[in-house]
């Protein structure tokens, strides 16, 4: 038998027409067999790198992943894991110095790419025609993908790992196929015996088609693969098989078709009788049949009636109007596919009446209560979950997203995402019900909720067409926003006439973002809630909802959101990053503190904890600390008229000590008039005078224009100038030394990622 690997010299990928990339897992590799390999690679390659000005690429995304890993608290982790976390930290230090001397380039890539995997694939596909490329990674899935890509494009694209000596070790097709199958079997076994998580399920979903294609293309057979000792768990009998009517763990699940055409219109089904409480019905799961007696009536919904099944299941019997061909066929598909995941109330058996006619289905019992009745309203939220913090809401988002991600991997579109078919329990588990409305295999989701309907879908009949993933992702984004904001609608703004369709269509997302001053921001504490949201999540929200946002037409996927919310969770846990203690409050009563050093105090009037944060005053370069919190300030006697107070309101004469206050024109919070400058509070003044770091002068590539200046042009509908000279200023002298060629090219490469990459590949 031939060797399963081929050894190559990685230095060949440091030649001018080639590129070498390194993935996160290589830096975190703790395998003693390969120890020192990275170091050897750099020793062997450094002269070539510098001679060709062709540094090894470690994309920003990888650096970000390493940073995240290095921040994990290793206590309580396994020894191996703790060692890997330590390695991530060490790698960062190494990368810093290596990039300083021009050996590594780590400024490529941006945050719009959710996963390094996807980034590498995009990169390789895009530049395969220009360069030979090699990626160092241990991830078998991406290895398979790139091998397939290389075959499809007939280009030289390699994936491998490093040996101890810094040689490039590349799997043969056979060996890679074999390893792919072992990985698949490992995840599939966990899924089958019920110990699997979403990662297992999405790996299974991803690997299955990949391996099929790989086998076909390279003429390899699955039967040749012997499952190694690592997969013993798959043969263990599952204790859950005994319980009715959960079916036996089946073979790993194939996703539904991704490209099914719309089925012909739905039609009603004939039936002789609809069973009710106490009546016996027949059930049939994927591989078993039996009968059961409908238990107590649990509820009547818009489509039918739900009865108690057994300890862990319920039975839904459709009403006459909803007993249709589509529902029957869809439920049969779901039952037959035997998808199972915690929190998804997927049909496990079809239910027939005594005449053998389809009348409903069995599904797992959901626990908890509807979002609508728990977290979507302050009164209900404080009644149901009085101790929860922001991090608990973030957990709910994560739990919701894991389920959505899994369903999307199975090519299931939920369709009617709304706060009445999502439930949450006191352990923050999310349950998704109403599986019979899901869209799959060309059966549309016939129902919808305007608040969660994408602009493109509004005004159409839900049952007339299939929803696109973009429509679904609109609902996902809206739901996430409403979880974090406890029920507030993203497009809420002042000046509406109550027309929700109009609000969604106009795309005027009114919450304050960066230098934009949206005067339509709703009143109340919502602005404070919004202000405390973790910046990356805030960015995704803004770009998804605002018509000028970058993700307005290409909305973030469940996977992307999941990553953002996991980062939000670790941010809230990290006291250094999340310096404002109020950021973990569900209902904060002030804006997020300006900076880490801002003084934060309890309110002396009402005693609310951390209720006052210092406001930076740029003029005297110190924090102004208000005397009382916003709540106490707002409780001062208001003028008798119901109209909004005039901009300068003198307080009653009986309180001669009160200062006159006025409203800041940017943040609309009131301040002592003495604190305002050109109608702005100290914090907003600072902001207005700050240079926008995202707008660079076209001549010198430096920030050049203030937010205030930008607002001036915007208000007059003028184009925003693009250079120092256009605003009658002179570019500052380029006084910075350029220690290495890399540093030079870096400072030139501030425009978009692809532009930078093109330039770089073009040898610039």
């Amino acid at each position, binding site marked *: 038998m031939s060797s399963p690997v081929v050894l190559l010299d990685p230095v060949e990928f440091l030649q001018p027409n080639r590129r070498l990339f390194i993935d996160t897992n290589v830096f975190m590799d703790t395998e003693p067999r390969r120890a020192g390999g990275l170091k050897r690679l750099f020793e062997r390659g450094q002269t070539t790198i510098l001679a060709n000005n062709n540094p090894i690429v470690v994309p920003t995304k990888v650096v970000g992943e390493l940073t995240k890993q290095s921040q994990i608290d290793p206590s309580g982790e396994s020894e191996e894991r703790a060692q890997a976390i330590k390695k991530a930290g060490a790698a960062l230090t190494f990368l810093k110095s290596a990039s300083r001397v021009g050996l590594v380039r780590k400024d490529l890539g941006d945050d719009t790419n959710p996963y390094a995997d996807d980034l590498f694939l995009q990169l390789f596909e895009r530049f395969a025609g220009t360069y030979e490329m090699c990626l160092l990674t241990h991830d078998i899935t991406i290895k398979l993908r790139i091998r397939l890509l290389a075959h499809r494009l007939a280009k030289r694209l390699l994936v491998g790992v490093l040996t101890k000596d810094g040689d490039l070790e590349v799997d043969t097709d056979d060996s890679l196929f074999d390893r792919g199958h072992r990985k698949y079997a490992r995840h599939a076994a966990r899924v089958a015996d019920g110990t699997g998580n979403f990662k297992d399920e999405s790996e299974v979903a991803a690997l299955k088609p990949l391996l099929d294609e790989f086998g076909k293309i390279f003429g390899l057979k699955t039967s040749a693969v012997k499952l190694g000792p690592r997969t013993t768990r798959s043969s263990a009998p599952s204790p859950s098989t005994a319980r009715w009517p959960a079916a036996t763990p089946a073979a790993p699940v194939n996703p539904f078709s991704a490209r099914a055409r719309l089925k012909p219109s739905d039609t009603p089904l004939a039936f002789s009788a609809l069973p009710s409480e106490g009546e016996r019905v027949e059930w049939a799961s994927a591989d078993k049949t039996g009968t059961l007696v409908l238990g107590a009536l649990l509820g009547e919904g818009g489509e039918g009636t739900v009865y108690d099944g057994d300890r862990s299941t319920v039975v839904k019997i459709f009403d006459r109007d909803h007993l249709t061909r589509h529902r029957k066929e869809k439920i049969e598909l779901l039952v037959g596919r035997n998808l199972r995941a915690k929190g998804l109330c997927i049909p496990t058996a079809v239910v027939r009446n005594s005449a053998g006619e389809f009348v409903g289905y069995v599904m797992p019992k959901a626990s908890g209560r509807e979002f609508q009745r728990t977290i979507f309203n302050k009164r209900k939220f404080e009644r149901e979950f009085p101790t929860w913090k922001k991090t608990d809401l973030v957990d709910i988002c994560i739990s919701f997203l894991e389920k959505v991600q899994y369903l999307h991997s199975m090519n299931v579109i939920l369709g009617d995402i709304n706060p009445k078919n999502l439930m949450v329990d006191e352990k923050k588990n999310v349950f998704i019900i109403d599986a019979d409305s899901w869209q799959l295999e060309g059966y549309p989701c016939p129902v919808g909720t305007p*608040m969660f309907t994408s602009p493109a879908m509004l005004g159409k009949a839900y049952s007339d067409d299939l929803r696109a993933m973009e429509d679904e992702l609109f609902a996902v984004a809206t739901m996430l926003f409403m979880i974090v904001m406890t029920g507030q609608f993203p497009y809420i*703004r002042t000046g509406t006439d*109550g027309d*929700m*369709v109009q609000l969604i269509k106009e795309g005027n997302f009114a919450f304050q973002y960066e230098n934009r001053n949206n005067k339509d921001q*709703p009143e109340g*504490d919502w602005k404070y809630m919004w202000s405390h949201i973790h910046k990356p999540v805030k960015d995704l929200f803004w770009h998804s909802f605002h018509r000028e946002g970058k993700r307005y037409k290409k909305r973030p996927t469940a996977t992307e959101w999941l990553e953002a919310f996991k980062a939000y969770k670790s941010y809230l846990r990290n006291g250094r990053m999340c310096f404002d203690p109020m950021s973990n409050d569900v209902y904060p009563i002030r804006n997020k503190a300006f900076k880490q050093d801002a003084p934060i105090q309890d309110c002396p009037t009402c005693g609310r904890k951390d209720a006052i944060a210092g406001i930076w005053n740029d003029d005297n370069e110190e924090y102004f600390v208000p005397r009382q919190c916003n709540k106490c300030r707002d409780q001062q006697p208001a003028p008798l008229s119901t109209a909004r107070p005039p901009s300068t309101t003198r307080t009653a004469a009986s309180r001669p000590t009160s200062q006159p206050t006025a409203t800041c024109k940017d943040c609309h919070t009131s301040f002592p008039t003495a604190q305002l400058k050109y109608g702005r509070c100290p914090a907003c003044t600072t902001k207005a005078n700050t240079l926008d770091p995202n707008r660079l002068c076209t001549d010198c590539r430096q920030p050049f224009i203030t937010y205030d200046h930008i607002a001036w042009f915007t208000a007059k509908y003028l184009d925003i100038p693009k250079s120092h000279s256009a605003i009658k200023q002179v570019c500052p002298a380029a006084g910075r030394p350029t220690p290495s060629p890399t540093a030079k090219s870096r400072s030139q490469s501030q425009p978009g990622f692809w532009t930078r990459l093109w330039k770089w590949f073009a040898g610039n």
Partner: protein
Amino acid sequence: MARLNIGADDLVDNPTPRVPVSLCLDTSSSMSGSPIQELVRGVNLFYDAIDEDDDAHDSAEINIVEFNSSAGLVHDFASIERLQRISSLAASGTTAMGAGVNLALDTLETRKATYSGSGVLYYQPWLVLMTDGAPTDNIDTAVMRVVDMVEAKKLTVFPIGIGSGADMKTLARFSPNRPPLRLDGLKFKEFFEWLSRSVARVSRSTPGDTVKLDLEGLAGWAEL
């Protein structure tokens, strides 16, 4: 008399879309005696039912406009939590229905402007008009305003006649989409129970949804 405390906080802190309901009630002298007593009982029962419904509780905002020789506001819009039950209404004078409806429409406009100004979502408002007689003032303007709003889908109106003296032809002018209904005897209780269920139904929908009224439930109180 009803009293209420004005609080801006629960207006803006509650993200639930609001459904403003104006009860525009005839308190002319012909209503005195058991009709007005049953009406008061019915209204209070309506409040209780809204209070107990988890959805309607956070959605409904109710005011009462009365009309006799002139029109007056019994209490302005408030959430159910802030509404005290009414102890009595005095019945006297003539039937200034035009003035009553105009005032009710004005209060609805003002309330919508408040929602709009503070950033609160709302459903298009409801107007419940109840009378046992015929108008003694000019109703042309009021009719025109109501019809325009109903046709623009900016108002849902329920004109209800009380007893055999109610002028159903006049009420019909206020209801371009469906015929007005006459209360069966003094079944105020049944009517307000039905109304609270209907409000609850709306508050479970999303603004913009078409909500089907519970027509079967009408049989409980209407003379069909």
